[in-house]
């Protein structure tokens, strides 16, 4: 793989800016506002982790940006998605197609549904190359496809590339998807649950590969996942999404060690850990909200331990406000949480872990 030529933004400059995005779906039960004013940036060379539970809108946000929402039932109500100077939300479909797969590439959860079952892997990657470079001769595209597969760690790439997706394992297919995604040296790579369908040892391989690709291409990466472990391993900055809104954003260390939104803290506390023996987990009570009947005020208030019956949470939706350097949270009582997390951190530091020499 060659180094990137020009074209990509210098490190630290935003590659994509999403501003106040609102997306609605028509459902039999009524209109669902799946994305409700989401804004975030991702910079060149940076990995932005977007975390949240099913239905929170984390995937719908990027589908809207890429123009991949179902046209019949979904609409972008307002917002901007600026890639360089272009607003992707206002680009005609033909021009957006030229951007997709070229400047912005995607890796999805299930590589089997993203690969054509009746075409060889080599053919599909070669076509991805030729789709954006009509002047590229077929044989050169094939050769490049094999090089790309080799670069993403497919052993014996020249031979295997002539195989079909069903002959490849899940981990190999995801490598092929990544090869296809980086084929045109995108400025932005969007990976939506890229390792969720994979076993843990294969996940480790694919995460290593994504890291390597990031180092090599300098692309900005949006990594969408429900897995806080993957976020902690990969992300530079984190966006936490709940009920269609960004509830907290900040540097990855800050989010994990000093969260200021009760939902973020709740997620961390609810996680069973590899490094502690059995004990009760602090589950978040209740169920994720039904977006047809979104709770008033802060959507998290019915499940929130900080709410304590206070009217402000019910009456007024909190804005995302600065709580520290590069750290913002959407909670009326984010200050109270600072004291609580400090106390919790103090407790866990004092807790003896599994000492060495524990009898087997």
């Amino acid at each position, binding site marked *: 793989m060659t180094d990137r030529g020009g074209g990509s933004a210098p490190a630290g400059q935003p590659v994509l800016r999403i501003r106040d995005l609102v997306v609605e779906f028509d459902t039999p039960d009524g209109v669902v506002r799946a994305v409700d004013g989401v804004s975030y940036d991702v910079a060149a060379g940076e990995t932005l982790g977007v975390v949240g*539970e*099913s239905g929170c809108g984390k995937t719908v946000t990027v589908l809207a940006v890429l123009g991949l929402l179902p046209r019949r039932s979904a609409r972008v109500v307002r917002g901007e998605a600026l890639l360089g100077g272009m607003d992707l939300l206002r680009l005609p479909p033909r021009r957006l197609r030229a951007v997709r797969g070229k400047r912005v590439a995607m890796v999805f959860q299930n590589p089997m549904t993203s690969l054509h079952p009746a075409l060889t892997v080599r053919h599909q990657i070669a076509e991805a190359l030729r789709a954006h470079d009509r002047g590229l001769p077929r044989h050169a595209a094939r050769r490049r496809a094999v090089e790309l597969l080799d670069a993403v760690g497919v*052993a014996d790439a020249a031979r295997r590339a002539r195989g079909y997706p069903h002959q490849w*394992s899940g*981990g*190999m297919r995801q490598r092929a998807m990544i090869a296809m995604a980086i084929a045109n040296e995108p400025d932005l790579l969007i990976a939506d649950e890229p390792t969720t369908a994979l*076993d*843990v*040892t*294969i*996940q*480790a*391989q694919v*995460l*290593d590969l994504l890291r390597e690709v990031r180092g090599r291409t300098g692309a900005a990466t949006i990594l969408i996942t*429900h*897995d*806080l*472990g*993957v*976020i*902690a*391993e*990969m*992300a530079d900055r984190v966006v936490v999404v709940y009920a269609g809104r960004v509830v907290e954003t900040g540097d*990855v*260390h800050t989010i*994990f*060690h000093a969260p200021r939104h009760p939902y973020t803290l*709740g*997620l*961390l506390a*609810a*996680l*069973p*850990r*590899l*490094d*502690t*023996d*059995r*004990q*009760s*987990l*602090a*589950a*978040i*009570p209740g*169920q*994720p909200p039904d977006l047809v009947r979104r709770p008033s005020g802060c959507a998290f208030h019915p*499940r929130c331990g900080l709410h304590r019956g206070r009217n402000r949470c019910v009456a007024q939706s909190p804005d995302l406000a600065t709580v520290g350097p590069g750290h913002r949270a959407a909670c009326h009582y984010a200050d109270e949480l600072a004291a609580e997390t400090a106390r919790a951190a103090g407790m866990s*530091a004092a807790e*003896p*872990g*599994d000492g*060495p020499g*524990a*009898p*087997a």
Partner: protein
Amino acid sequence: MTPASHPSASALPEGADRGAEVLRVEDLVKHFPVAAGLLRRRGSAVQAVDGVTFSLATGETLGLVGESGCGKSTVARLIVRLLDPTAGRVLYRGRDIAACGRRQLRDVRRELQIVFQDPYGSLNPRRTVHEIVAQPLRVHDEYRGGEGRRRVDETLEKVGLRPGDGDRLPHEFSGGQRQRIGIARALVLGPRVLVLDEPVSALDVSIQAQVLNLLRELQSELGLAYLLIAHDLAVVRHLCDRVAVMYLGRIVEIGASRAVYTRPLHPYTQALLSAVPVPDPAQRDRPRRIVLGGDVPDPANPPSGCRFRTRCWKAAERCAAQDPALVDRFGHGHPSACFFAEVPAAPTTVGLPP
């Protein structure tokens, strides 16, 4: 949570001593024949489970972990006899389930129940929650009028649902509540053993914690033994007293949870644990991360000798020639199936305070 009406509800089932063996699996084998094709010899078979032995005690939770295709879910299905074993025995309180006739099997199933992964696919969408939970009672001819209704309501309450929920249909519930319904259906006959097949892997983190806590409460309240099948190593650690690690149809290591997690002996266990992403960014550059090469081999054509050797960094000639037995190599009560098993110098589980 109110205890059920019979006075023994908060104690162990009658005739059960905590710690007494309730389930024992001996040399269990399940081969699935593969249809002859262009590439395969006739008569070849997927060796899904190939000589698995373990026991489970009353009130205990044993975790069975491993990656897809390791055979853990097949073991679960063999134990409740949704599948018949190719060889070996499944002993429920001394009685071989594999050799049971229909009538005996019914008696065993009253006490040995399974909870499935998918709370969407495993509940009949046309039946009310009450009917779903009452079904096992009807099958066992124990649903009688008011008494049956009361038992169902009690069970719903036990799993944190309201009796009024019985009149609703599964689709009116979220994933976590559906899994509660699945648990209620498994509990209604008053079993001693629950086989939990990936019970929380379809659930979001916040809901997963609710269900894990529920399972622990039920266990201490009812003295249940759990066999937990899961791929999530943190979930297993959280719930289990003991853990068995499987690879390609065999157990490669088994022992107390803490021992296996802090001092894994088998190279596969070491690699597996080190591959789990740790939800703490301060540890992302931790050393001792072992990334295995390649994929799990085809279970229809497993490697000779040690099945892990094709991905193992310790593999030597001996590993191809001989099959390492699952034996207690260090006298810790923590058997491992590797010629080169080693007690790690320091606890290898990540995330320990320095």
